[in-house]
C-alpha cells in the first residue's frame, strides 16, 4: 500500500522534497501550491546564491549550519541532472579596515567547523587579482570558492518538472484552508479545490508556514517577513566576476554586489523586519532602495547612472521564532512535518532539507521507503534561442519555423522558446495563463525594455494556447489580468 504525502508549498523547499520523495515506490506524492505556478513565493525574489556555509553559527543555528554546506554540495549534482542555469564563481567577503580581519578570521574558523572546503583569507594583491574592479579601499578578503549562483525560479521549475515526470501530482492554484486530523493523526488537507487525502503532510508553506501549522494545532513558532530590496541593471553594465559581500556586522550579512546568472549587475538586499501580517508586502521603498545603493557603492563605487536601472524589486524572507530552520515531525499531529522558517540559506539548503525530510519519514514516521526500480534523475532545459548557434537555429527551424522568430528582442527569445515554455507550464499543471510563467522560463520581458515590445505578443500566444480571451491573460495570476475587456467593452456596456 502506498502512503500518501501532501506537500504544502511549491517553493524551493517543497519542490525539492517532492523530487526526493518521487524516488520511492511506496509514496504517492501531492504537491499543493496556492499560486498558479511554482516558485512564486519566497523563492522568487532573493539573492539567488548558493552560499558557502561559513556564515551559520553551529551553536545557535545547528540545522542551518549542517544543511547549508550539505546543500551546497548537493547542488553541484542537481544543477547538472536538471540543467539548471548556474555559475560557480566564488565569493569574496571584503575587508575595508583592519578590524574586519578579526571578523573574517571568525568566519574562517566557523567555516572550518561547518566543513566548508577551500576557504582562505587573501591579501590585497590577490583580492584584486580575483576582482579587478573592486573598490580601491579593499585591503583583503575571505575567499570562498565554493559559492555559486543559480536562477532560483528556473531551479524550482526544473525540480518540479522532474518530480512530475517521476509521478508527483501537482495541485496549483490550490489554497490549503484546513488540516484534517483524527485521533492525533493527519488524514489530509482541505483546500479551496476539495479534500486531498494524506497520511503525511509536509508544511513547506514559506511565509505562511505558521498559519498552516496552526491549522494542525501547532503554534510554538511564528513567521515574520523580512523584506529585502534589490536593484537590477542593464546587461551592458559591467558587474563583478565574484559574489561580493562586505564584512558582516552582528545585524546583517550586508549588501551583496553580484552579476546574476543572466549577466545583469544586481545589488541588494537590505533587511527590514515587517509585522507578521504583512506577508504580501512586496512594495519597494525609497529608503530601502537608497540604503542598498549606498551599501553597494562601498564595494563597487562605479555604480552606473540610474538610467541603466532595468528593475527594482523586493523579496520577503520568512524569519522564524528562534532563527533556525524548523524541520521536524510534530508529535501532537502524527504525520505532520514542519519545514518552516526556511530563511537564508534556504535556497542553498533545499536539496539537503529534502533528504532530511525523507529521513524523518523513514526514521520517525516508520515508513520504510522503497526505491523505485526506474527513477529518472534527468530533466532537459527548454530551448533557448540565445544559447543556440545560427546553425542550431536552422536545425530548430526545420522542426518548427517559430524557432526562427524572435519575440523578446532584448534577450533574443524566440516564439518557439515561448511555445515550449507554455507546453512545460501545462505539463506541471499550470492552469492560469500568466506572462510571469513565460518570463521565468524564457527570460522574455526581463531585458532593457522590460517587455514593452514583447509582452503584447506573449499575451497573444498565451491566449491562443490556453484558448482564453487575450484580456483574461494575467501578468501574475488571478487579479492581475492584462486588460478589462475588448477595446469597446466600456462603450458597449454604457450604451
Amino acid at each position, binding site marked *: 500500500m502506498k502512503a500518501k504525502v501532501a506537500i504544502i508549498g511549491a517553493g524551493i523547499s517543497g519542490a525539492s522534497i517532492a523530487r526526493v520523495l518521487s524516488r520511492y515506490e511506496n509514496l504517492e506524492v501531492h504537491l499543493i501550491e496556492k499560486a498558479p505556478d511554482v516558485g512564486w513565493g519566497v523563492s522568487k525574489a532573493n539573492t539567488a546564491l548558493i552560499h558557502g556555509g561559513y556564515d551559520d553559527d553551529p551553536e545557535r543555528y545547528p540545522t542551518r549550519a549542517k544543511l547549508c554546506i550539505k546543500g551546497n554540495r548537493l547542488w553541484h549534482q542537481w544543477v547538472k541532472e536538471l540543467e539548471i542555469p548556474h555559475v560557480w564563481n566564488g565569493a569574496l567577503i571584503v575587508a575595508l579596515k583592519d578590524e574586519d580581519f578579526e571578523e573574517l578570521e571568525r568566519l574562517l574558523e566557523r567555516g572550518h567547523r561547518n566543513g566548508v572546503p577551500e576557504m582562505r583569507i587573501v591579501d590585497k594583491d590577490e583580492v584584486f587579482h580575483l576582482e579587478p574592479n573592486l573598490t580601491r579601499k579593499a585591503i583583503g578578503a575571505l575567499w570562498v570558492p565554493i559559492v555559486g549562483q543559480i536562477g532560483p525560479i528556473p531551479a524550482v521549475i526544473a525540480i518540479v518538472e522532474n518530480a512530475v515526470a517521476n509521478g508527483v501530482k501537482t495541485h496549483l492554484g490550490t489554497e490549503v484552508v484546513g488540516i484534517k486530523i483524527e485521533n492525533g493523526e493527519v488524514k489530509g488537507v482541505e483546500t479551496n479545490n476539495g479534500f486531498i487525502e494524506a497520511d503525511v503532510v509536509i508544511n513547506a508553506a514559506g511565509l505562511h508556514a505558521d498559519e498552516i501549522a496552526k491549522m494542525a494545532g501547532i503554534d510554538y513558532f511564528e513567521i515574520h517577513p523580512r523584506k529585502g530590496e534589490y536593484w537590477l541593471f542593464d546587461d*551592458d553594465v559591467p558587474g563583478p566576476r565574484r559574489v561580493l559581500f562586505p564584512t558582516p556586522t552582528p545585524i546583517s550579512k550586508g549588501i551583496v554586489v553580484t552579476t546574476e546568472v543572466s549577466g545583469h549587475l544586481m545589488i541588494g538586499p537590505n533587511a527590514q523586519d515587517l509585522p507578521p501580517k504583512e506577508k504580501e508586502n*512586496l*512594495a*519597494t*521603498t*525609497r529608503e530601502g*532602495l537608497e540604503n542598498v545603493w549606498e551599501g553597494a557603492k562601498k564595494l563597487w563605487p562605479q555604480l552606473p547612472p*540610474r*538610467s541603466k*536601472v*532595468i*528593475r*527594482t*524589486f523586493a523579496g520577503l524572507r520568512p524569519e522564524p521564532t528562534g532563527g533556525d530552520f524548523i524541520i521536524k515531525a510534530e508529535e501532537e499531529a502524527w504525520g505532520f512535518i514542519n519545514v518552516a522558517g526556511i530563511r537564508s540559506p534556504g535556497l542553498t539548503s533545499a536539496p539537503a532539507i529534502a533528504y532530511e525530510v525523507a529521513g524523518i519519514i523513514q526514521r520517525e514516521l516508520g515508513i520504510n521507503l522503497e526505491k523505485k526500480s526506474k527513477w529518472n534523475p534527468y530533466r532537459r532545459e527548454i530551448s533557448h*534561442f540565445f544559447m543556440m*548557434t*545560427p*546553425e542550431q*537555429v*536552422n536545425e530548430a*527551424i526545420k522542426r518548427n*519555423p*517559430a524557432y*526562427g*522568430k*524572435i519575440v523578446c*528582442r532584448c534577450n*533574443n527569445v*524566440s516564439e518557439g522558446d515561448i511555445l515550449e515554455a507554455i507546453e512545460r507550464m501545462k505539463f506541471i499543471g499550470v492552469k492560469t495563463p500568466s506572462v510571469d510563467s513565460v518570463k521565468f522560463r524564457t527570460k522574455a520581458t526581463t531585458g*532593457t*525594455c*522590460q*517587455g*514593452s*515590445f514583447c*509582452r*503584447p505578443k506573449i*499575451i*497573444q500566444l498565451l491566449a491562443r494556447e490556453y484558448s482564453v480571451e*487575450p*484580456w483574461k491573460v*494575467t*501578468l*501574475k*495570476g*488571478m*487579479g*492581475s*489580468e*492584462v*486588460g*478589462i*475587456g*475588448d*477595446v*469597446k*467593452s*466600456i*462603450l458597449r456596456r*454604457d450604451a
Partner: protein
Amino acid sequence: MFPRIPMLNYDVVVIGGGPAGMAAAIRAKELGLKVLLLDENDYLGGILPQCIHPGFGLHYFREELTGPEFASRLAKRLVELGVQYKTASRVLEITNYSDLEKVVIFTSPSGAYQAWTKAIIYTAGARERHAFEIGIIGDRVSGIYTAGEAQTLMDIYGILPGKDVVIVGSGDVGLIMARRFALEGAKVKAVIELMPYPGGLARNVMILRDFNIPLYLSHKVVEVRGKGRVERVKVMKVDENLREIPGSEFWIDADTLVVSAGLVPSVKKLKRIGVEIDPSTGGPVVNDRLETNVPGIFVAGNSLLINDLVDYVAEQGELAAEGAREFIENGGIESRKWVKVEKGENVRLLAPHYLSGDKDVYLYLRVAKPMENAELRIPEVGKEIKLPVVKPAEMLRLSLKAEEIKKAGETLTVEVVKV
C-alpha cells in the same frame, strides 16, 4: 569564423522597416542599389500601424495622414519598386569585416542567414523609458504600461488595458494615449508632467480640454500600490530643480498607469561594433551623409535622434540611402576636413555632427528650455533666424546651404538666444 548558414549578397542592408527604413530602402532601390530591408515585426511600418491618429505626412506627402496610411503609402511604393524585404526577421549580429564588407546575421521563420553587404542603413527606431527607469517605487503589479505598449494592446490587439487611467508625461504620445483612452470610454484621471510646461504640441495639448483631463505640471508619480492590479498612485509636486516637495503628496485611485517618459534610440548593436554615441541624442555621431564613425554604417530616424515628425524621419532615411550610394560608388565617403557642429546656448542636442560643406544640409536640433522671441544664430557664418517661440518638445529643422557651411572654419556653433 562565420557560421555555416546560407549566405546572401547585397549592396545595402536596411535594418528596421519603419518609415526611416522604408524610405531608405525605396531611395536605395531608386538609385540602383541591390537592397534588402529587414524588420522584426510581422508587418512593415514599425510603430506607425498603431499610431492611428492623424498628423503625419504634411511635409513628406503634402497631405495629412494617419500613421497606418503613411506606412501604407511607403509600403506600396516599396512593393511597386520590387524592393526585397523580409518581415519577422530579427538581426542578431552586425560584423564590420572590412570597410566594404559587412555581415548582418539575422533570423527569420524561414531560417537564419548571413547577409554580406557593402553598406548598412540602421533604422531600428527607439524604445520607451519605463517605470523602473524613472524611479517609480511600490508594488510590481499589472496595469503599468508604457504608452506604446498600451497603444499596441488597444489599437493592434483590441485589448482595453483599464478604465481609470493616470498618464505620466504630457508629451505627444502621452496626450494621444489620453485621447485614445478617453474616446474608448475610460476615465483619464490625470496627466502628470514633471516639467513646468506641457511636453506636447499645442494641438495635442488641446486634447486635455476636449476631454476635461486635469494636467498637473511640476508633478511626478512616485509610487504605485495595489494587489495584483494597480489600485492607486502617489503623486508629488516638484520644485524648480525637479526635487520632490515634502508634504505635497496625494493619491489618485486608478487601475492603470501609462508611462510616456520619452524614447531612447535603440543602438546597442551599433555600440558593440564601435559606433560612437552622442550622449545628448542617445544616437550615433554622424556626418552630413548620416554616416557613423564606422565607414559604411549609416543611421536614420529615431535611432539617430528622437524626432517628433515622421516626415523628417523619412527624409533622413532617403539621405542615408544617398550616402550609401556615394559610399559604394566611391569605395567610401571621401575623408575631408569636416566642420564640427557645436551646441551653443540653449541647444540641448543636434545632428548631424560633422558637415562637409559640399552639400546643403538640414540640421535637426532641440532647445533645452522654452524661450519666446528667440533667435537662432550661427555666429561663424553670420546666420540669424528669428523664432517667436521655441520649445524642447518641438524639434527645429534648420536648412544650411553649402556656401554658408564653407564660410565656417573648423567649427560652427548653433545657439538659440533671447533677443
